[in-house]
């Protein structure tokens, strides 16, 4: 029951942040950052099992490894971007969070370009 652990950690950290925030807001931000990193680490080890299953399924279905890898990369970039942006927004820096999200969107778009090109190629070939 990992979720109980995570909820407990969340409660404890919330209380600690409430204590620390008045005197040391910068340490409160670091505390919440640490909590999110720890939770991410706990969840990612579970996620890797699911992703391995997806890779197996794609291999069985004869889907090119390139597509799955692109999708996984996009999901990874989205996760990390969201993580960074939320930490910045929690600290009250909405502008920095916006820039991080912007960079994440651009990088996702760059990764998606080969697939978009392939789709357009297919459409052009379908049109007589």
């Amino acid at each position, binding site marked *: 029951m990992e979720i109980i*652990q995570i909820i407990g*950690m969340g409660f*404890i*950290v919330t209380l*600690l942040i409430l*204590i*620390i925030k008045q*005197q*040391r807001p*910068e*340490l*409160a931000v*670091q*505390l919440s*950052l*640490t*909590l999110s*990193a*720890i939770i*991410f*680490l*706990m969840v*990612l*080890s579970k*996620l*890797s099992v699911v*992703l391995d299953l997806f890779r197996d399924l794609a291999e069985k279905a004869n889907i090119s490894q390139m597509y799955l*890898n692109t999708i*996984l*990369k996009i*999901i*990874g*970039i989205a*996760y*990390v971007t969201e993580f960074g942006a939320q930490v910045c927004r929690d600290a009250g820096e909405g502008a920095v969070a916006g820039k991080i999200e912007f960079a994440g969107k651009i990088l996702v778009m760059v990764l998606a370009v080969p697939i978009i090109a392939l789709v357009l190629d297919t459409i052009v070939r379908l049109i007589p």
Partner: protein
Amino acid sequence: MGIDVLFKIAGVGILISVFHTALKQAGKEDMAHLCTLAGFALVLLWVVQLLGRLFTTVQDVFKLF
């Protein structure tokens, strides 16, 4: 590792706020600020190590290179 690093950070935070108040009361403003900075750097060291682990794990799981 989990929960202990959280308690370490919270402990450093509380300790530093106590030190800050005490040094300020004693009239050593610059020392109080140095103390705050030292605590911040110490906590940043732990947080950066953890973040490095997090990012390498994300890179491993999602095959980002």
